[in-house]
């Protein structure tokens, strides 16, 4: 991968941080978590340690992601539903792919 200049990196980071915040707010809403977005680190695992969610929550998360970000989570993507960052990766990759298809 080609190294970024700082200005580019900051712009990319700002865009990702917006998606990350939106995802955290979405999860807090759909799972009724008694948390602020800042209480959830970006690398926070969703299941087991971390947010301590379970498999029922996983289904809620998929529905919320599909609704909020307008993408379809296929079975092969379920492995990506493991942390905030991995879901943001999923959202960004699928959004990019959909833009390319369009």
């Amino acid at each position, binding site marked *: *991968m*080609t*190294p*970024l*200049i*700082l200005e580019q*990196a*900051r712009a*990319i*980071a*700002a865009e*990702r*941080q917006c998606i*990350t915040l939106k995802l955290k707010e979405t999860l807090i809403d759909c799972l009724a978590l*008694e*948390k*602020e977005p*800042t*209480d*959830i*680190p*970006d*690398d*926070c695992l969703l299941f*087991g*340690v*971390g*947010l301590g969610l379970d498999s029922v929550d996983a289904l809620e998360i998929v529905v919320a992601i599909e609704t909020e970000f307008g993408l379809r989570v296929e079975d092969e993507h379920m*492995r990506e539903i493991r*942390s905030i*960052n*991995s879901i943001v*990766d999923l959202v960004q990759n699928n959004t990019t792919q959909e833009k390319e298809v369009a």
Partner: protein
Amino acid sequence: MSSAYEKIRNHAGLVDLKNWVRIEITGADAATALDSVVGGNILDLFEGKAMNTLIPSLSGGVEAIVWILAIEAGFQIIAEPDEYAPVTAVLDELTQNFDICVSNLQNNTFHLLVTGPEAEKIAIAALGDEVQSIAFLNAFELADGVMAARIGFFGEYELHLFGDASLQDSIIANLLSHGSSDIVTDDSAFPVMMAEMRILNRARDVPEDASVFDVGLQWMIDFQKDNLRAADALANRRGEKANSCVLMVLDSKDVSAKTDISVEGEVIGHVRSAYYSETLNNSVALVFLNRDLAVPGLVFETSEGIAQTVSAPAFLSKSVLNALGQAA
């Protein structure tokens, strides 16, 4: 590849953790007392369950990172050796105000770790089928009062065994007879394996002035607790625009820890810990990066070589891939 790393990441390792913190808290106020100092909600931790949490410092930082097991008699704190002093200092304070009994178990109990992608088979063969039913974040008492706990430090299958010191030799012999003497190893690979998973050791990886938010350990805290230690300090530090701890992979094999990292002549962060990862064939570093750059997926040409911010973990361990394969 180092022997300890190779065994634990690719096969199985048996590690003697006798120097780790093992402290039992019992008494009528045990739950209330612990709950007043740790971030997690101890009142919801039922017997046979384990919790990874921290003791916040009075300034909103990290006093100690611990695991807590709820056992029949009360609670057992498990932590890396560096946490002994801060944990005992906090517990000493608690004994002044609560009806609790604090017992240091280090001298009269053993602590063994069976770990690695092939470790579960050895543990089941040596200790019985009950081991298979112990889920992550659970503990179970085996024969002879040996406690087995599934808690985790570096992303592999990890079974921690605790019991009376007189039983240690027979437990080791039993495990070796179902594995091989080659599985005996030491904890020398723990720092790099923990960094690969972005699991932090307070003494190594957490700067004294860092808040729980800077290090990304706020998930260990239940902010709804009305008795949260240092609640005001934590609230004040929530909105600070300091650096965030990020996992970076660098192409240099010799990255210096405790050094600034810069891009285009501008300091963008501070490398707190760095290790050569034999799995990645690159260095992994825990970097406190300017918050406006603290996201995964960025590649920089830095003063320490080409560096990429990555999501944690840096890779899925063989134990996790095996488990995912079985689940599928």
